[in-house]
């Protein structure tokens, strides 16, 4: 549309008698002299040195992109609207009843989660980058483990040992692994040690140290704590 604003009028209008009778608006002599120069000067000065303008006007300044509210009346209105829109949160009981966090049984299929694992491997590669092992370990501590292929290498409970599967859900105290024979195994993080492989490296996770929700783990400040006993 914007291109059409300055395009010439259609020919039939140009040729119409009304158009021919049209006169140019009256302009005074002083304006005729002043305007072209002024316009040219102002355009030139702004295009002269954009860097200079950026330094003088923008650099280091906070600019609000949003359209701020000016009057208190408007504020009141918006607050009223927000109050009406308040999100309804499910209670823990409701979550339990509706089984919202439970993975339905028809989805307990290893093949379904292979793409998730591939995605996770990509994510790990990105996370690893060129970082040194010590830095990477710090990153791992806050990484997301959904999609990791975990193996339980040590556990206080003998029957957990040796379970291998893709981690599809992490809660505060559990890793839920889906095994190759399409079974969902819930493994407590406490008293267990998990390993996973990235390229040629084997990483060991002490579950006892990771007993947080994945969201809080990402922002938590970890302190050194010795691992005394499983």
């Amino acid at each position: 549309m914007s291109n059409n604003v300055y395009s010439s009028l259609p020919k039939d209008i140009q040729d119409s008698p009304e158009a021919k009778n049209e006169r140019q608006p009256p302009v005074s002599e002083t304006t005729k002299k002043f305007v072209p120069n002024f316009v040219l000067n102002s355009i030139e000065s702004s295009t002269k040195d954009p860097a200079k303008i950026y330094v003088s006007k923008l650099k280091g300044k906070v600019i609000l992109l949003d359209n701020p509210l000016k009057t208190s009346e408007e504020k009141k209105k918006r607050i009223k609207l927000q109050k009406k829109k308040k999100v309804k949160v499910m209670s823990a009981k409701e979550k339990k009843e509706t089984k919202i966090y439970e993975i339905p049984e028809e989805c307990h299929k290893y093949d379904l989660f292979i793409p998730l694992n591939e995605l996770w491997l990509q994510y790990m590669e990105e996370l690893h980058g060129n970082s040194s092992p010590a830095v990477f370990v710090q990153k791992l501590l806050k990484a997301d483990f959904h999609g990791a292929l975990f193996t339980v290498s040590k556990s206080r409970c003998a029957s957990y040992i040796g379970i291998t599967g893709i981690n599809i859900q992490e809660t505060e105290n559990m890793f839920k692994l889906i095994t190759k024979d399409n079974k969902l195994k819930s493994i407590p993080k406490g008293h267990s040690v998990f390993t996973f492989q990235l390229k040629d490296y084997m990483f060991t996770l002490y579950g006892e140290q990771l007993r947080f929700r994945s969201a809080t783990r990402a922002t938590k400040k970890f302190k050194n704590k010795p691992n005394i006993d499983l």
Partner: protein
Amino acid sequence: MYTLLMAFSLPEPGKSKLLISKSTTKSQNSRHEKIILEHPFNHQMELLFPTVLSSQQIMDQFSKDPFFFYKANIPLSYFIDRTFINTYVKGGCVRALSLSEGIDISNVISLDESGTLILNLTKDTYEQLGLTGKPSKYGTSRQRFVVQINLLEKSMIPGKKGYERVKWCFENSLTESFPFLISFIDIISHESKEMKFPSTFNAKKLNVEQNSFLLNDILIPEISEMIKMNNNNNNNDNKKEENKWKSDAIEIYDWLGLVSLKSQRLLAYDQIDPYISLYSPPEPYKMGDGTLLRWTGFIPSAIILSIFKSVLEQIEKNNLNVPWIVINIWGFKDSPISWNKQEHNHFMSGENNYSFLIWPDGSYTLYQALGEYDNYSI
């Protein structure tokens, strides 16, 4: 004060045990065969005769076919191999015991004659293994675990869930090879039989060493006097007499221990400062000579039983003209079981020894010495 006492009420300190019993081989309820066969891991055996035996006599009567055993580095997956179970566990009597730094600090694995694989593991190993076991009864609580696998169970067949789990564990989590002593005995002929191992096991065939010692001019108590006294008093239930028998029996056991050590205190002409030792043998005693035969190695209990029987035969026929014969057997201190698959461990001493004192009429006194950490006598 009272509360303090409550808080610090410690359990009673454990004690080493010596069990003394008497019976006769003629009795139907006699336990001598059971006692010998249920004690699987024997380190040393000794025969003591209160007389001089010529080397010819020894050769004739007690040197049978040499019995031998193997020392080999065996991974645990070898024991659950079907060919091993079929040829050795089912085809005879196989026993194995791993050598370690000690049962209180490291892993000990044993296979007894009934085909039960017993793994006495440290907590660290147990948490990696993946087989369910029970916490050990001894030591700090839940720091050792005992896993038992019966190789002759019906479920130990490839393809079954339990078998596959054991196999997975031995091939993936506990792949280490342990230095084992292993012996294989034919059930009928009671002879050691050859075993075949893959060359990677580094198997060495070892013979049970046999030594004999002559003990000249030692003081020998007349033990049969004591048992006779005791037999007479068996009828009236006199507690005093029983106590006397008990203390006599303990004194004899002390003396037997000194004989095994070939102690100088037993020499007839020993002159020791009474400040150092006041020992004198149980009375009545007289000067005499003795012969000690000693076998050292991994001695299968079936062979001990056959020697026991030949000794019994000799003394009943009175071929040797001796009033009594003693058989001493020392178990491995780091054995995970003592008698009858009862748990055994090492604390101050891991002793699990026994001795038979045999008389010509077939009666015997049995001594069983057990360390503090043993479940057999409880």
